[in-house]
């Protein structure tokens, strides 16, 4: 049952072959068996998960109509607020924080009758690319326990890769869904900015953050996105346009299909095995009649620099509220208010978070805002214009998700810049607000998964998913599972 997709698990329940309870039990057993090594989850309430499953089974028995994810366990990154349940962001500063509200996407999952199986580990406040920056634990890559699952949504990616959950939610500010999906050999998607409500998503970079799905295959990702996407009046930046039924047309190929390939995504620092796998994937598309077109995204090499100014500037302000006054950690010994605030923040935040708050504050401070923050916003516009021009010529843009396969735990821990550069291909999508997906497209000789990144224009999710599905139908990379 662990190898089945959510779509197949739904079918089994509909056929009466499985119950929500038995499915949930199976995934919980997998969690019990493996998570002491993988450490994907921060909080799992088994009894509660079983209760939810029993309620779904009772609903089914009573002939009530059921939601799109009835009885399907979903793991949730611990930056998404869950009412009455601890939500820590992988940070000490929120160790005891219990939100009095559900994130919009959690409400959507509940309405779809999904089983909330647990909260997953992540880099503190989603700042990182390896899940090593969690204040609680380091999550390991199910394909090689010495390696990171990527990040910041590493817990969610690892939980799906290790079959501890068929589906998971992550958040992506600079690649935090796509990069771990790539490193863990699963599907991960960042929707266009504004497609999914950010209400209840604890903010890192507000103009970049989006919630998105992790799944074993493209159909499941489409299904989960269908559930969470859509208008929410509580988020001013969430668009009020209908959500297409992503799963309905999934198997219809886009014809004709023009794929843009930018030389900037194949430059220095790209691992040759990764490049080879991506080139093979392009061949698969060519074999299906797609046209490959060389394009240029001339400003994308600046994306990392722009990102580390824009995201950190927003973060420095977003994280100002953790001051030990109204919620969160308060230090024990202090002399007066200011000392209390400084000590609480000094103790509560980890090194990477402090570094980014410092960088963002610096970028916004008087004397530097023009040279840094505002300059970055101008280059951001140029990056967006590059994409606008690209999507005028092609349907999607393809390239590697990450320059390398999974790297070793500790390998980049002391070199923040090297860590930042592992997001070099994913970041520009967040800056431009467009959608992107990572799908498995091969393995290194040492058996580590490689991801293909496909980028689509703003709100072109349906097209993006159909293009991704085309590759999946022709290959079976997505069917491989790690030996645990």
């Amino acid at each position, binding site marked *: 049952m662990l190898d089945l997709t959510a779509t197949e698990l739904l079918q089994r329940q509909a056929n009466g072959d499985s119950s929500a309870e038995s499915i949930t039990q199976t995934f919980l057993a997998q969690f019990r068996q493996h998570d002491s090594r993988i450490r994907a989850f921060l909080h799992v309430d088994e009894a509660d998960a079983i209760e939810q499953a029993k309620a779904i089974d009772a609903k089914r028995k009573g002939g009530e109509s059921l939601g799109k994810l009835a009885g399907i366990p979903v793991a949730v990154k611990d930056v*998404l*607020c869950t009412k009455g349940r601890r*939500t820590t*962001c992988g940070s000490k500063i*929120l160790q005891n*924080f219990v*939100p*009095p*509200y559900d*994130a919009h996407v959690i409400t959507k999952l509940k309405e779809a009758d999904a089983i909330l199986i647990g909260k997953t580990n992540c880099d503190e406040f989603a700042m990182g690319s390896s899940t090593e920056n969690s204040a609680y634990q380091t999550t390991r890559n199910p394909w090689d326990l010495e390696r990171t699952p990527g990040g910041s949504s590493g817990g969610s990616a690892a939980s799906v890769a290790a079959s501890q959950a068929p589906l998971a939610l992550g958040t992506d500010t600079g690649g935090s869904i796509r990069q771990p999906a790539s490193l863990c050999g699963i599907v991960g998607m960042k929707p266009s900015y504004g497609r999914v409500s*950010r*209400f*209840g*998503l*604890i*903010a890192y970079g*507000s*103009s970049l953050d989006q919630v998105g799905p992790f799944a074993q295959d493209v159909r499941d990702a489409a299904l989960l996105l269908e559930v969470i996407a859509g208008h929410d*009046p*509580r*988020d*001013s*930046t969430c668009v009020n346009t209908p959500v297409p039924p992503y799963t309905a047309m999934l198997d219809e190929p886009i014809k004709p299909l023009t794929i843009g390939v930018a030389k900037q995504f194949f430059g220095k620092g790209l691992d040759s095995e990764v490049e080879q796998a991506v080139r093979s994937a392009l061949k698969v598309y060519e074999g299906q009649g797609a046209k490959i077109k060389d394009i240029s995204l001339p400003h994308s090499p600046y994306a990392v620099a722009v990102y580390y100014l824009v995201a950190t*500037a*927003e973060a*420095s*302000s977003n994280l*100002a*509220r953790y*001051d030990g*006054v*109204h*919620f969160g950690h308060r230090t024990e010994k202090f002399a007066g*208010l*200011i000392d209390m*605030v400084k000590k609480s923040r000094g103790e509560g935040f980890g090194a990477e978070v402090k570094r980014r708050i410092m960088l963002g*504050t610096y970028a*916004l*401070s*008087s004397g530097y*805002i023009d040279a840094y*923050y505002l300059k970055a916003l101008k280059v951001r516009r140029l990056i967006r214009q590059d994409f606008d021009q690209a999507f005028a010529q092609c349907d999607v843009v393809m390239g590697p998700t990450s320059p390398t396969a999974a790297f070793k735990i500790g390998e980049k821990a002391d070199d923040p810049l090297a860590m930042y550069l592992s997001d070099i291909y994913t970041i520009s999508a967040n800056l431009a607000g467009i959608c992107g997906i990572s799908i498995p497209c091969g393995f290194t000789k040492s058996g580590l998964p490689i991801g293909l990144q496909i980028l689509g224009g703003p709100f072109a999710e349906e097209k993006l998913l159909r293009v991704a599905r085309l590759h999946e139908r022709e290959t079976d990379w997505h069917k491989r599972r790690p030996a645990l």
Partner: protein
Amino acid sequence: MMSYRTIIGLEVHVQLLTRTKLFCGCATTFGLPPNSATCAVCCGLPGTLPVMNRTAFQLALKAAVALNCTIATFTKWDRKNYYYPDLPKNYQISQYDLPFSSEGWLEIETPAGARKIGIIRAHLEEDAGKMLHDERAGKNDSLVDLNRTGTPLLEIVSHPDMETAEEAKAYLEELRLLLREIGVSDCEMQEGSLRCDANINLHVPQPDGSFVATPIIEVKNLNTFRGVERSLKYESERQAAELQRNLDAGVWHVDATRTSKFRDYRVSPITQRKSDGALGPVSKATAGWDERTGRTEIQRRKEEASDYCYFPEPDLVPVTVDADTLERVRAELGELPAAQKTRLQSQYGLPVYDAGVLSRQGRAFVAYFEAVVKQCGDAKEACNWTMNDLLSTLNDRKLDIKESSLSPENLGELISEIQATGLNKQRAREVYAVMLDGLTAKQAIDKLGFKVVADEGQLLELVRKAIAANPKAVADFKKGKVKAADAIKGFVMRETKGMAKTEMVQQLVMRELAKE
């Protein structure tokens, strides 16, 4: 005593009359129990997002249009970052470089006539919570109430166009009248829905015709109109003395090398020695006004300007205002107090003072006055009765004009009745008092049993009787003491219990005395 010009600019915050806060659905009601009107959004809990209250923006727009401001077609909000426990997000959502309105004016009355006070900008922002200092049992901590957090505020910044404390007060009163009239704010200073900070300094003339500027002081927490006036008077005198003292002692120097232009003259700043020995400008300071001692207390001189790290609020989207919207807002404003005052003078021939008193009472009061005029046709009398009798009744009973038990039609009828019957003022006031119970003038006169004596024969008899009974008054009158006739009239009034028709008595007394 040196002569100087006082330069005053006001920064006013008013709470907008919305039901709910700027970014969430919590109530804005004043005086609720602590922390009973908050939610995850206004408490700044992680993951929450602001959504703009449409009414708040519309009210802000209305105010800016009424203040003759230029309205931006595109406006956005920014985060003003600073740490304070009454600000749970540790940033205030405000407007920085693209406020929704700028460059307007408000006209005030000064002893030298009407004058326009310039407005630099008006912008929409959120309020902070309240801090209470707990000094019980030597506890050195503060308490925070977040009920007020997120209440919509309109910040209105004036140009430094006011030259006296009285003008500052007049500006504030005119602003309050305008904002109340158009329903933007209730402007209750006691409840904090109108708050004022004042920037003040002096320009002191120099022998060469230029001026020297004293360092600007920002006087905070002015929460009464009287406080505004008193504090600014005190502060201008204090600054004059401080300048003299510091120049005499050689602590301050006039820096004639860095002059700037102000209106039509040049101004030199003050410098003093800094810790490194070099001469540097004296920075702006804030001061608190102590109502009890009647003094301003300098709180701190800022070494360098605070760094608020402003940047665009990513959780909100911009707002656009098109020409149609502006046209609609303008049309809905109706007649503003300044225009109304002018019209009352031209249409009804009222003196400027009377027109001012009426328009200061607000639109509803003016409408009442106009209804009285319509009924009786006498604007002067209508103005006298509403401005004097009715207004004092309303004040005594703490009633709004809308709650008046006396309708304008009835008051108009009373005025007509007085004119028709010649009822004297004293008796008319008694009728008025009875009419406050809801009676018409005729009903009240009947109830009081008043019957005006207007029979010429009857009155002539009484006048003759009075003349006969008051030889001294008659003698005095003959000597030219016109006032002496009052004794004759008084006799007639007493005889008729005050019901004699005043004009007729007047005529008869004069005619009969002339015959003597």
